[in-house]
Every structure is written in structure tokens, then in C-alpha cells.
């Protein structure tokens, strides 16, 4: 599988990454090589194999008691934010 510059631009958009045309060409090349490596997977017979999402089979999700444990620390948390006002995180105007 080879990717074109256009393919890469579509992927970059989906991933919300600004890349230049030049970068897109470079990525088209390296992503194609990675996909070529990945094509080795086609060699294996997986017709009867279930996919595995977790390395430890048989473990199940633990359920947490429904009790409030968090306290309001928004001022501390918002020290890391680029732009806040009146407790709100600000982003460029969203038009729905």
C-alpha cells in the first residue's frame, strides 16, 4: 500500500495536524514504508483467531462506588490553560 501526498493530507486533517506540502510528501514516503512493513501481517492465518485488546486475558472491569471524591480545583487546573475567562476555557468562536 502506497500513500500519496493527498492521502497524507486527508489523514493529517483527520488527525488535526497542520503539515506543509513538503512534509506531506515526506510523510507519504515514510508512511508508505511503514505500511509496507505492516503488510507482513498478511502472511499469518488469523481466520479462526479472536482479536486481543488486552494482554491479560480474563481480567474484567472493576466497578467503582458511586461516591464523590473530587473537590473543586479548577483554578489550579486552569493555570495550564492557554486562555480562560470566568472559569471557562476559551476557544475561537465555534459556529454551529
Amino acid at each position, binding site marked *: 500500500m502506497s500513500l500519496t501526498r493527498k492521502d497524507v493530507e486527508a489523514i493529517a486533517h483527520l488527525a488535526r495536524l497542520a503539515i506543509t506540502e513538503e512534509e506531506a510528501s515526506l510523510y507519504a514516503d515514510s508512511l508508505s514504508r511503514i505500511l509496507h512493513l505492516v503488510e507482513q501481517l498478511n502472511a499469518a492465518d488469523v481466520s479462526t483467531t479472536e482479536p486481543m485488546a488486552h494482554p491479560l486475558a480474563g481480567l474484567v472491569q472493576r*466497578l467503582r462506588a458511586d*461516591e464523590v*471524591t473530587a473537590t473543586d480545583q*479548577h483554578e489550579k487546573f486552569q493555570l495550564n490553560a492557554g486562555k480562560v475567562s470566568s*472559569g*471557562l*476555557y*476559551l476557544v475561537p*468562536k465555534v459556529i454551529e
Partner: protein
Amino acid sequence: MNMQSDAMSWETVIGLEIHAQLATRTKIFSGSSTAFGAAPNTQANLVDLGYPGVLPVLNQNAVKMAVKFGLAVGAKVAQRSVFARKNYFYPDLPKGYQISQYELPIVEHGKMDIVLEDGSTKTIRITRAHLEEDAGKSLHEDFQGYTGIDLNRAGTPLIEIVSEPDMRSAKEAVAYMKKIHTLVRYLEICDGNMQEGSFRCDANVSVRKAGAEKFGTRCEIKNLNSFRFIEKAINYEVARQIELIEGGGTVQQQTRLFDPDKGETRALRSKEEANDYRYFPDPDLLPVVLDDAFISDIRATLPELPDEKAHRLVREFDLSPYDAGVLTASRELAEYYDKTVSIVVGGDRKSNAKAVANTVTNILTFSLNKENLDITESKVTPEQLAGLQSRINDSTISGKLAKEVFEVMWAEGGSADAIIESKGLKQITDTGAIEKVIDDIIAANPKQLADYRSGKDKLFAFFVGQVMKQTAGKANPAQVNELLKSKLAG
């Protein structure tokens, strides 16, 4: 070419995705409070904010509530369900993905009956109901040209209840939505507050030529949060699609928003591009595995469900299906009714059940509607209403005067006893007093007496009316009948 629309030739097809916020104390994956109305971002902890390094841990009550719902709609509760990530970028979605269930939801294959306008019943199939986290809120009022993001709601547990495209009109969609609304409140898994967004839906709407097998292209109307809006939005959308097709156009699959001010739907600008959500199992969460004991414990906590209850009221107390439907349409109304019946003194259970049902579905409902009040805001309490019925049962007042007592109760408050006393509405049961009234009336109406005695039986009602008029309706009707009969007979 005849462009005239023939509305009858089109069929509407509707499927709903209902989002019900679960009434847990904390969020689905964090220990933050879910209380409504807090100052912005004060109920968003590191997990809700999607901080680097944090991890989700599942709230057991969210799971229990979803199971409860599944059992209540006769669905299959999955012994193994899996959380997946739905990836997309939006400012109210802090992690850049929503944790939801995709291939293996917790609830599948349920159903819900609705009653159509002609009184017949229709079954709406519920494809699935899955657990997921709610997003935050974007506040579009102007903040120095920016949109403000409040993540208090982010991570609030939701069940998304997905129906099959089984509804054929806006009215059916509303009826279904109302039934689900009633159910989740009966189950106490959702407060049902539509204004606060606790209960809302997306409607998938398409039209097709009557008789066609294939569905038309659908549009999804997002975020409808009132029954009225659902009806209006669907009707608008149906008309729009028909007009579009009849005008030679085609319906584009898209996401639309309903504008309640204009009564129109419009295509969403920001989300219009084709989404590729790249679902995959969330590696931070393990499969949710529920054993039989877990599920049967929850089954044991199910209350009597509205449809079951309505059937029982018809069966045990001979209520009309209509009255039974009205009384079970909300958990609060049903509780009001049950409580009232349970504390009435005198009479047998069946007659009390019927009498109270009458009062509630007629007089009380009329008063509530007139003032646009909810049953929880009723000015007459179950205790007051039961007191009134008790006085009818022990013949303190006549049924006819009950309405008058109720109206005073509604307007001024007070117990039935106090109102009867102060307004002098107590029934006259003193035979002597009634006899005196009858004697006076007979004396004053010799012609009617003669006619009656010569065979005009219908005049009996005239005499009853006269007695009631004289006694301001307070005379005991049974006694009046009996005494009149003997006196008129001469």
C-alpha cells in the same frame, strides 16, 4: 408535470436516539459530582478534563441503571460489554474521543409499546441501549469573540437508547419518547429534566413513497429537548424533504439543528464534513462482565412498571384503559393516586379506586392543566383528596358537592372537614327536616302533584330538583328519593 404535493403518497420514517443522563451521584469514569448548575468547570476533575496520564474507572451505579433499563424494556442484558473510543475533535470533548459502547453494548433488543391516536397499540423496537459519557458545553455567547467551554457536564453518564426506524409520524415519535421518559423516571435512573438536558433526543427522519420498501435518505436532527420541539422539528423536516424531492432535488444525508424560534431545521455548519470516528476498544477499560446474580439482583429491585400497573388497574379495579393510562403516565401521578387511594377511610378498595381515579383524571387534571402545573405542584395533596373521598364515603357530603369542596380546597386550602364545616355543606340526613322541605314543596306545586299522580312519572325529577334547590344540594339524595316517593304517592 403536476408538482402538486400529495401528502398521502408519502410515508414518514423516524428512528430516535434518546440520550438519558443517569441519575448517579458521580460521573461515569470519575469521582466528580454530577449536580446541575455549578459554576463553570468546578465539577471537572483531571479525568473529566482529559489531563495527561489520567485513567477512567467505571461507576457501578451507571452500570446498574443501564441494566435496570434493559430489564424494563424486555431487552437482552449483555453479560459482556465493551467500551470503545469514538474519536473526533470538538472543544466540549476534552480527550478528543468519547468513551462509548460500539460493537458490544450493554443492552440489546428491547421494545416499548405506544398507544396510537385510534387507541390501538404499536410496538417500537429498541435496537440497543449503550452506556457513554456526555460531553461538556460550549457557550456561544460572546466571550471577547471566543466560545467558552464548561466541562462540568463532561463525563456525566448517559444511556443512549436507539430505536429501530419504526415510527411513522411525529406524533408516534412523541408518544414513544414520552413512554421512555415515563419509564426512566419510574425506574429512578434519570430525572427526566428536559430543560436541563437530562433527557433529549436525536431524530433520524426520512420520507419514502408509500409502499416503497427502501428507506429514503435520512437527516439527523440533533439535540431535541422538548416534546413540542420534537413534533415541530419532525413535521418541518418531513415537509422540507417532501418539497425537496418533489421539486426534483434529493435529500442529502446530514446533521441538522432545530431552531425553535424559527420553527425550522438547518444544516449544521461545523460538523458537516463526513465523520470517520475510528472506533476501537478503549484500552484503558476492561470488558464489563456481569454475572447472573448481578443481573437478577437488579431485576429484584424493579418497581411496578407503568404498563404493568395500568393493566393491573384495569384488571383489579375496572378502571377504563384510558384512565389507567392517564394515571400511570408519570411516576409522580401514579404515586399521588396510589397514596390517595391508600388513605381513604370507608368504602371498599375497588369503589375507592374508581372514585379517586375519576376525581384525579377529571377534576384534578382539569385544575392542573388550567394553571399549567405538574402533579408535584398540585395545590391539593393526597391527604386532602383522600379526606374528601372519606366524607363522601361516610355520607357527610354528597358526591355532587364534592366538586365544590374540591374547588375551595384548590383555591384556599384546608381539609375537607374544615371546608364542609365553614361553608355549611354538610349533608342533611335529618328525616324530619327533609320531610318539612318536601311538604312545603308539594303544597306549593299542586298542579305538578296532580299531574304526577295522574301518571306523569317524569315529574318525579322535578320534585327532586326542587328539594335539592331548597337545601342547596345538601339533602341526602337517597333519603330524598325515598321520602318523595311515599309523600307523592299520597
